[in-house]
Structures are given as C-alpha cells and as structure tokens.
C-alpha cells in the first residue's frame, strides 16, 4: 500500500495528508502517520465540533477545572472538590457490548483518577433499539453485564442512569458513562508535563495489540456491514488491574511523588504523552523499547497507538523514581521508565535509542484543521415511526400502554445488577429517586447527581429538546433538594458532514448553552461522539446532560413515597403537549417541532420545589416527565402501594383545552408534590403556579380530565410497569462473567 492510500485507510483526507507533509517538510513515516491519523481524528481533535463548543458557558464561582482537563471539577467547600465527566463508548459497544461497556466505564474512571480524585459514583445513559429483537437483547445483556462487571469489581457504586429504547439506536446503541469523584482541591493534579530531565513512567497493564486504531477506525466513522471484522479494535477490560491502579495512584499522590498524571485512553501513548507535552509546552522522548509488552514482536507504531486498558502515564522527578516504582510494586502494578521530558518541543519516538519518528508536539496536538459545518434544516421528519397502539384505546388502556413503554417501564432488573451501595455514601439508590444522592462527610453536606437526554424530543426540535434535557436534570436535582453546581455532557450525533446532522448539532449546542446560562450552571467538561450512523440512517440526535448539585443535609431528603390522605399538587408552568411525547410515538404520529418554552418561569418553579423539599414541608416530589402527569402519578402510586384520585380540570382550564394533553402530554416545568394540604397551600403566592389536583387514597389510580377518565388498579399499573424484564430476557443468557 502506498503512503497515499495508507492515509485514507487510516481516516485522513488527502488535504489533511498534504497539510501534514507541509508541516513536516517531508512525508511522515509509518509511525508518524499512525500517530497523526489518531490525534487528527474526530474523536481526539473534535475537528467538526470544537468551533461550536466555544459557545458553552464554562465559568462560574465554583468551577475549579473546566474543559480541557481530564475531567471538570467544582468546589464543594471545606477544601474539597467534586470531579466529574461523561464519555461515550458507543461504537465499541455496538461491536462487542460486554467489553465495550466495561472499558467505557474503566475509561471514564481513569479520567477522574488522573485528576487525583477518588471515584465515588458511576451513572450510565444507555440507548438501544426497540426491545423485541435478538440484537437488542444481545446488546442490552452485554452492556448491562459489562457495566456491572467493571463498576462492581472496582468497588465504585453505580447509583443512577437511564435507558431509552428507540428504533434509530437499533444498530448503533449508545453507552455513555459518567463518573463522579472527590478530591482535596489543593491536591488535584493537572496533566501538563513539566521539568526538563524529568522521567516519564508508564504503569499498569502490559501494552498489547488490543484496541489498535480504535479512535480513528471505530469512533470516527459510520458503522456498516462487516463491523465484526473490527472486533479486534475493541479493548479488553481488567477491573482488578484498575482497582490496584486506583489505590496506587492515590498513594503516589498522597506521597507527593508525581509532577503530573495522565490516563491512557483513546490513541494510547500517542495521545497521553502528546497532550502532556502540549499542555506543558515541553518536548518528550518515548523509547518504545522500554514499554512492557504483552507480545514481544510489536512494531513501534503499534506500541504508540495501542489502546490497551488500565495504564497511566506520570511525569516524575529523577530523585523520586525509585519511590514511585516501589509503590507500584507494592500494589503489584507493573511500571517502567519509558522516556524523558525535553525542552525541544518535539515528540521523539525512539526504539532502543534509535529514532523511529519525530513530530513537533504542536503540529500533532493542535495542528489539525477545524472545520465549519454546512448545516441545513431538514424539511420533514426523517425517522421511522410505526403505530403500536390501537387507535381506539381508552384513556385507561393508554395509561397502561405508557407504563409498559420500554423507555418508561421499570429498569430495576438492570439497576439491581449494579452495586449501588459500596462506599457507604449512597442515600438514594438508582431508581429510588429522580436523582441519586450521596453523602459527603468531607464537606458535611451531600451531592445529587442526575443524567438525562431524551433523543426523541431532540429529534423533534434539537434546540428545544436540549433545553428540556438540561431543565430535566435541574428538575431531578430540585426534587431531592439540590441546586446545580456544574454540567457535563456527551453529544451523540450522526455524521456531521451531512447538512441535516450538522444543523441538529449546532442547534443542540445552542440550546445547551442557553439553558446552562439561564440556570447559571457552567459546563465544566464533556465529550463529543459523532458518526453514530449506519446505512439505515443516523441515531436520534442525543445530547446527554449530566449534572452535579449540592444539598445541605443528606438526612433531609424527601422520600419517594406518598401516604394515604396526602394532598397532591401540580407545581410549575407546565403546559402539556402531545408533541414528541411517548403517546405520539405509539400513535405513529411523530413530527417536527416542540412548543417553545420560557426558561425563567421553569427556573422559578425549580427553585420553589427545591426549597420546599429542603424545608421538609413535602412528603415526596417528582417532576413530570415521559408519559405526562398520568405516568408520574402512577409511578408514585406503584412505589408507595397507595392509589390516588385526581382531577385535571384546572389544568385544562388554564393551560390547554385538550383533556388528552393534560393526561398524557409532556414538556418541562411540571412537578408533582404530595404532602399535607396546609403545607402545600403555603407554597402559593410566590409567583409560581400551584394547583391542588387530588389526594392519595385507595388502591386505584383514578384521574379525570373533563370527559376522559383513567381508572386502573395500582396492581395493574405495577404489572405493566414491571413488564419490561420479561420482554428483554436475553436469548444469549448463559454467558457469565
């Protein structure tokens, strides 16, 4: 293969190859070309999204580390910070779900570990096709096991997450993992290399041939037929190795033995060493002959781009090298000095002392051209949508059909495969509340974490849908009494070189920026995953928003249950509409557009609910989300084992003249609060709409909306809500890990 076609096979365009030759003054050799192809890939260089991301608000009084570091971090007081980030591992999971998901968790944990933080929680945002195909069963089974395998074995609790099932994810599932960690603010480490003559130490797993080209071949191209052949580009996870690596890093940092620390993720040594040198303005020499190998005959380019997991790279002063190697030995972690920091500005690859490649750090890390997109709004709805509910279904039938909808139904069968309590911080577990709550004795307070992103609504309106995802996260925090501190996000989209996808991406980022500004919640980090596309078309545009918030007292979180005799109130400017709703999906009537929403009144409602929960005046609070008011009431009835009687006439009168909208419509800005009537009435008069709509009673869920009436037994509702497990039971069961 000539160099001319070699660069194309590695994912570089002819123009990019010419640019590289121009910068180098010659054609790159094999090692150099492999390194450029990875760091100039979409996955590493963000070449199609970086310009748009500049619009996001990234500053705030609590921000300690923002975008550009391994993870973002916010101050929680008393000398501590919370570090967090969400990242995708979509294409590896499409090709090999168990290892793809496991290494996705392993990778995001290392990002937080590299900051000097101890991970304290994992959340996952997953997307699959409809749950009735063999492929979906296979993917769900592997992904859920993979997440559990890694997180459980590491001893990091998986405390929350969400799973949606929609046709456009059938071939291209999404696996986004978020990690939250805690660190002493003054001991957090940055990734910048420093100090000419300092040594570069690689520690952790052996370097093998796994994951070669993962970032360029898998993550930066569309999926298509024959992807089974790409299975060798998926890495294999070893959580035991990472568990030792975590403890080892914590002791290395506590002993003040490191100048800087970086994890090896996508593009392996090339990316971590290159980015360390770039951030520090230094040069770096790496001798591949010193790298401990799994297979002896690896070529220099393979060593430089291997994505073998569970490896870290540290810069160490020469006098501390022995102490570092001794601590690694204590933790039975392999370690080796593989290079040195220089003042040349050059990334030099040596093999047993002989130069094998030489690239200017700046050309490699910052030289990739950034592209403007060519957006164009599609004229029509472009996604498949089939009718799946009887046209003449009664309101009660619709209510049951919504509760059984795979995206709404209980995911307990999945969450129970995750250790949610290790670490002794978990106040609210996955599924027990809209947001997970973790006790933080270090600050004497607690944090709440939520993750959300309804791709269907974003497909209807990328701007509005992304605003809603952000408001949904803030609402999830509010119902446990927390206020937002910072935001992370993972932007999962199709091929940005296509005008329709480019338009979705731009509009979604605009929405995210607008909502974060309005909530004063800075974006401190994130990840972009493009080319989520198969010959059947792109995925729903899916910005996944992760939010970390703070609450004063872990002992004072509203419970998830209401009690017989409680009054029920609807709070907020909620204006329900069937546009983009679960019911519209089931009727096969999805189309473009969502109603516009003003953010300020929603924020006011969020703050009122947060304060009411903090004040202990409500028994339970939840936000109205997928499936509308009926679904929200039914879910509370199911978890509490007590029914309710509600009348939505006041909402119809005020908001909408359509009873069906009131029963099943969706949209932001609605909260259900239950508790003592006098206490709920006191929440009025603060400029936020409050309607008393009913009371908690009996063993039936009875909701009237003018002529329409939902009347179902709590146990019927529960059976529908719990029906997903049987549908999803894998045909592949038996593969144990």
């Amino acid at each position, binding site marked *: 293969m000539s160099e001319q076609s070699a660069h194309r096979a590695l994912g570089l365009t002819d123009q990019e190859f010419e640019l590289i030759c121009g910068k180098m003054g010659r054609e790159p050799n094999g090692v150099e070309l492999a390194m450029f192809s990875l760091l100039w890939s979409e996955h590493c260089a963000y070449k199609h999204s970086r310009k748009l991301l500049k619009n996001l608000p990234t500053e705030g009084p609590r921000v300690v580390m923002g975008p550009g570091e391994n993870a973002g971090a916010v101050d929680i007081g008393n000398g501590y910070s919370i570090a967090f980030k969400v990242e995708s591992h979509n294409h590896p999971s499409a090709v090999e779900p168990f290892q793809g998901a496991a290494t996705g968790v392993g990778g995001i944990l290392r990002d937080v570990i590299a900051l000097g933080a101890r991970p304290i929680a994992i959340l996952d945002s997953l997307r699959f096709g409809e749950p009735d195909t063999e492929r979906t069963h296979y993917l769900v089974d592997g992904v859920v096991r993979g997440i559990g395998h890694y997180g459980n074995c590491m001893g990091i609790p998986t405390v929350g997450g969400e799973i949606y099932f929609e046709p456009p994810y059938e071939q291209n599932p999404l696996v986004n993992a978020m990690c939250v960690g805690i660190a002493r603010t003054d001991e957090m480490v940055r990734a910048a290399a420093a100090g000419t003559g300092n040594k570069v130490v690689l520690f952790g797993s052996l370097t093998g041939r796994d994951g070669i080209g993962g970032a360029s071949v898998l993550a930066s191209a569309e999926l298509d037929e024959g992807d089974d052949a790409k299975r060798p580009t998926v890495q294999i996870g070893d959580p035991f190795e990472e568990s*030792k690596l975590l403890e080892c890093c914590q002791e290395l940092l*506590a002993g003040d033995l490191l100048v800087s620390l970086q994890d090896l993720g996508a593009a392996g040594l090339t990316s971590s060493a290159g980015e360390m040198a770039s951030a520090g303005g230094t040069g770096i020499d790496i001798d591949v002959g010193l790298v401990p190998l799994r297979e002896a005959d690896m070529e220099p380019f393979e060593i430089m781009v291997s994505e073998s997991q569970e490896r870290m790279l540290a810069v160490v002063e020469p006098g501390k090298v022995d102490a570092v190697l001794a601590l690694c030995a204590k933790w039975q972690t392999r370690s080796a000095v593989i290079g040195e920091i220089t003042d040349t500005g050059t990334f030099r690859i040596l093999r047993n002392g002989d130069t094998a490649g030489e690239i200017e750090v700046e050309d490699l890390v910052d030289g990739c051209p950034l592209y403007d997109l060519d957006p164009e709004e599609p004229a029509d709805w472009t996604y498949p949508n089939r009718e799946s509910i009887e046209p003449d279904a009664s309101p009660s039938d619709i209510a049951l059909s919504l509760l059984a909808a795979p995206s709404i139904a209980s995911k307990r069968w999945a969450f*129970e495969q995750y250790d949610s309590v290790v670490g002794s911080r978990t106040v609210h577990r996955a599924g027990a509340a809209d947001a997970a709550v973790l006790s933080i004795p270090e600050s004497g307070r607690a944090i709440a974490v939520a993750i959300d992103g309804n791709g269907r609504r974003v497909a209807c309106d990328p701007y509005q849908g992304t605003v809603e995802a952000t408001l949904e996260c803030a609402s999830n925090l509010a119902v446990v009494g927390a206020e937002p501190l910072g935001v992370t996000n993972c932007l999962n989209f199709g091929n940005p070189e296509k005008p329709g996808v480019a338009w979705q991406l731009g509009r979604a980022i605009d929405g995210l920026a607008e909502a974060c500004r309005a909530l004063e919640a800075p974006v401190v980090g994130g990840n972009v995953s493009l080319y989520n596309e198969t010959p059947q078309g792109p995925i729903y545009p899916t910005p996944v928003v992760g939010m970390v918030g703070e609450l004063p007292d872990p002992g004072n979180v509203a419970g998830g249950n209401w009690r017989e005799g409680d009054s029920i109130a609807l709070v907020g400017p909620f204006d329900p509409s069937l546009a983009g709703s679960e019911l519209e999906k089931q009727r096969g009537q999805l189309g473009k557009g969502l109603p516009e929403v003003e953010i300020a009144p929603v924020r006011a409602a969020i703050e009122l609910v947060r304060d009411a929960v903090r004040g202990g005046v409500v028994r339970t609070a939840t936000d109205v989300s997928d499936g509308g008011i009926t679904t929200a009431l039914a879910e509370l009835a199911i978890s509490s084992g007590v029914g309710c009687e509600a009348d939505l006439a006041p909402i119809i009168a005020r908001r909408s003249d359509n009873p069906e909208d009131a029963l099943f419509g969706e949209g932001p800005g609605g909260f259900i609060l239950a508790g003592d009537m006098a206490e709920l009435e006191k929440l009025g008069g603060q400029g936020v709409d409050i309607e008393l709509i009913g009371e908690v009673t009996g063993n039936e869920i009875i909701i009237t909306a003018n002529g329409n009436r939902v009347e179902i037994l709590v146990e019927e509702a529960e059976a529908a809500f719990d029906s997903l497990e049987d549908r999803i039971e894998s045909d592949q*069961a038996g593969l144990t890990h």
Partner: protein
Amino acid sequence: MIWGVLQFPGSCDERDALNACLIAERSLNSRDGTGGALSSTRNVVEDPTDPVFESSEQSGVGHGADDVSGRGGGLSDSAPSSRLVWHEETDLSGLDGIVVPGGFSYGDYLRAGAIARFSPAMTSVARFAADGGPVLGICNGFQVLCESGLLPGALLTNERTRFICRQGDLVVGEADSPFLAGYEAGQTISVPFKHQSGRFFAPPELLEQIEADNQVAFRYASGQNPNGSLNDIAGVTNEAGNVLGLMPHPEHAVEAFSGSTDGLALFQGPALATAGAGA
C-alpha cells in the same frame, strides 16, 4: 474493641467495614443512651485517599501510604484504633477482632476467595481464630473463610448467574456466637444483599450437621432468598461460634442516612458478649 480489617489487592468494601468498626467502637465507648443518633457520630473525613484514616479524631489509625511494610497504627500519641491490615502483614497483636471484608480480591478471576486465602495475613487469621479470636467474613470475606476451611460449606454462582444488589431482610439464627450478642434469635434485620457468587452450598451430611449444631447465623427472610442458597442460609458460624461469615452487607447498614442501622450490632457483638460474660 480494636478491629483489624484485611485489605487484599482488589478489595472493595474494606473502608466501609472499617467505617462500621469505628462507629461500633465509638458507640460502645460512649454508651450513654445515644445509640439512636448514629449518623452524627461519623467523622468528617479529611483525606479522600483514606475516607476514614486521617480524621483528626482517629490519628493512630494505620495509613495505607505509611503502611508499605505492613506496619500500621501506633504512629501517634492517641489510643490505638481499628485499622486496615495489609495482606502481607502477619502480626495481628493488639487486635481484638478481624474482619475479612467484601469485594473482589484478586478480581475473583480464579474462583471467589481462592487466591486471597493464601495471603500471609490469612495464615495469621487462622491462628487468631484457633485461639478463639472473633473473625467476621463479609461477602468475599465469607468466601475466603470457606476457601480457608475456617467455615463450612461453599459459595456458588447465583442461581440466575447475575450480580444482584438490593435491600432485603435477614432472620437472625439460633447460633451461639459472640457476633450475635446484640440480636435476638428470630429477629428480622434489613441489610443490602449484593453478590454474584452467594449461593450457599454444603453436601447433605454437612448441611445436616450445620443445622443440627445450630451453626446458622442468618437466613434470608421468607421469599427473599436471592441466589438459591440451601435452606435460605445467608450466614454460618464455625463450631465454636467465634468465626462468622455472611453474604449480605451489614457494613452498609450502620448509618441512618442509608435507611437502616441494623448491621451495627454485628460489629458491637463481640464487645457486648465480653461485657455480658464479665458482668
């Protein structure tokens, strides 16, 4: 009551177990009727690298980083306190009880507990147990104790082959063990169940003997057996009663915010038993 909590490469729950030991220790030291306010006894942690070690009130607890050679504790003037015991450490002097904690020692890649049982510390734990010292094995620690032959039976992969994690109820058994001094036989307690290989198994003869000798410490409450354990057994003791292993996680049920403090009495048991015997 000074506990040593074993730490193997790959352990997960050792800090949680140590946290439970420290809370039990403090609650017993200040036993003045404030037993209900357990969550407020938890110290503010000053170093996330060691969520319980470097608290100012607990100096003297072994710090992992100072512990490379297996030395721990006794580093300051204050009284010794419960601490982690590195797997290469063999000197257990000064410890009143041992916890073998949960997690995935050595990744459980071979068979749960099969490698950890060969650690130098376990040789000392076997001697400690033979001398009558209280030894508690939780989850992976239970598996390690069974692998070591310190407890009868074996733990097999769950019937459904999947990891499960849920809050559930246990019924306290009739076993005569110092660990159960804080419970009544027949009492129901709420603790998290979480494991992948928790199905208790013993050959018929051994099972009969375990039952006949009243060695069952805990059973899953009716209808809540999560893994197919024989006779709903969740925990057993050795014949002498000083070694107890259980699959569920009492160390995650010691603070009010978690929803249950039912696990705390297990960590108070040996001290209560000693006090009871002395009185």
